[in-house]
């Protein structure tokens, strides 16, 4: 009997940090944010319960255009990261020799921890009018006058793909690494060509890794702040910028909270759809990477 009590006590003790963390830092703040977003300011220090902040969002095309733009560009970045990253992951996991495999994987893991700020800074130095690429092309006479490569959508997309692509490659390498080569050989022996083997064997096997990479990459992109601002300039119109603007610049927390909730709802819906369409769950994708 005493043994059982000790077990139960241990369980409670282990539960305490988990509950404090999830309840106080995740659930409660988000509930608070939703409640705040439903508060309308009708006069200084006078508030009313209502959907006013969300109605403002719908009535102001700049706001929902920004959200749509952020969403569609994030999907583009996710797709690009997958298309560019999959061959790299496949090379590291299946084609590179035993010795170079570890080294290549290490080369992918180390830049993962360099701050977004430094990566964006590096791109600024490369792409701006007085930057490395422009100066280089100028000195070889390929262009006549310096070119500004920054402050356009292409620069933002390149910078974002760069920032997030390793979060795509690393889970893909882990999944592909666990795949038995004989499965691929069997596919060939049964008469499949490269395309069929890829479509019927490799991609289905790598699905948890693909989904996991896509979820993390999409979320990081949609929630990114530094890269769009620094590489896209004042007109990058990223949704996180609107949230910052409402919160810090205009001090309109009610509407900022509504925007925050909209971004959260939007990314959650996309992630949920992605999981449903690919038949995966959060536990067997993100948790494993």
């Amino acid at each position: 009997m005493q043994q059982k009590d000790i077990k139960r006590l241990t369980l409670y003790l282990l539960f305490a940090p988990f509950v404090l963390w999830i309840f106080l830092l995740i659930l409660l703040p988000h509930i608070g944010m939703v409640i705040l977003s439903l508060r309308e300011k009708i006069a200084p220090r006078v508030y009313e319960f209502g959907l006013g902040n969300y109605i403002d969002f719908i009535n102001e095309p700049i706001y929902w255009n920004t959200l749509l733009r952020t969403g569609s560009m994030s999907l583009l970045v996710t797709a690009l990261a997958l298309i560019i990253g999959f061959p790299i992951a496949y090379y590291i996991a299946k084609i590179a020799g035993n010795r170079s495999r570890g080294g290549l994987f290490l080369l992918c893991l180390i830049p993962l921890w360099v701050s977004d700020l430094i990566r964006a800074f590096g791109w600024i130095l490369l792409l701006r009018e007085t930057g490395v690429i422009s100066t280089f092309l100028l000195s070889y006479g390929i262009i006549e006058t310096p070119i500004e490569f920054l402050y356009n959508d292409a620069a933002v997309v390149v910078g974002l793909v760069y920032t997030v692509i390793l979060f795509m490659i690393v889970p893909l390498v882990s999944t592909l690494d666990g795949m038995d080569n004989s499965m691929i050989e069997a596919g060939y022996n049964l008469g499949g060509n490269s395309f069929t083997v890829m479509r019927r064997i490799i991609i289905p096997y790598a699905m948890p890794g693909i989904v996991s990479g896509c979820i993390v990459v999409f979320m990081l992109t949609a929630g990114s702040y530094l890269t769009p601002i620094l590489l896209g300039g004042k007109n990058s119109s990223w949704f996180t910028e609107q949230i910052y603007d409402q919160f810090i610049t205009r001090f309109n927390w009610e509407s900022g909270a509504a925007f925050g909730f909209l971004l959260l709802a939007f990314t959650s819906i996309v992630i949920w759809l992605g999981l449903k369409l690919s038949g995966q769950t959060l536990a067997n994708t993100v948790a494993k990477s």
Partner: protein
Amino acid sequence: MLISRKPSPFLWAYRAYVLAFFIFLAAPLVAAGTFAFNDSLFPALPWQGFTLDWFFNDTEPKLGMFHDRRLLRGLYYSFVIAGFVAALSVFVGTTNAFLFVRGDFPAKNALYILMIVPLVIPGVILGISILVLASDTANYLERTIDLELEFLRPGIFLVVLGQFSFVTTITSLVITARLKKFDASMEEAALNLGATRARVLRTITLPFLRPAMIAAGIVAFLVSFENFNTTLFLVGSEAPLTITMYDRMAKVGSTPVLNAVSFFLIIGSGALALISILVQRDKTDR
């Protein structure tokens, strides 16, 4: 194999692509790091010669990073914050690992999902939601019982909480994966030989988990150090390095001292990342 072992034109093209990718990966980091050594007032070509002034010089206009008070203070706050975040998140990550690997309780799967969720919430939203809750609590206490709780206002405490809120998911996953590999018969053997539960935990289970705990701690430290999105909303007057650098970039414009800091951080985080990988690798190949 998908590609035959014989060197075909396709394989060469494939290799060229991989090489191009790694150049793409390295280019901005090389650019950010290299200009730290250029003897010029602007981080741009042409190359004016090698210098270490942007690290060690002590006078304007070429004030080196190790003499720049504001940058050093940012570095210091970053270290303090990252240290707290790493310690806290490894502790809670370890208890979470025991909870989910050993514990048996209702709704375990749902709670496990809840544990992963912070990783897929955009950092900006974690920042504002914690800011809102802390400020509301502080305002409420001030209004009703006239109690001013300074730590609930933006500052180091909130930054630590904000980063801790999602870093803990990472540490929990790393330590859980390790604990799952643990062979329970080792504990049973020790118990049969008369060891107490506390002793078994101290001499067998925790040493087994140590590599994962160290690796998780390093990762937590690095994630905290480089975090910007969550920190941006919770920061008070004690700004960590990423915030200080961003301010400098936005207000003063970039000077090579920022390259010096970048170089320092790239080398530092690269070395730490390497250590965290090596620590885990040694022990997993049992």
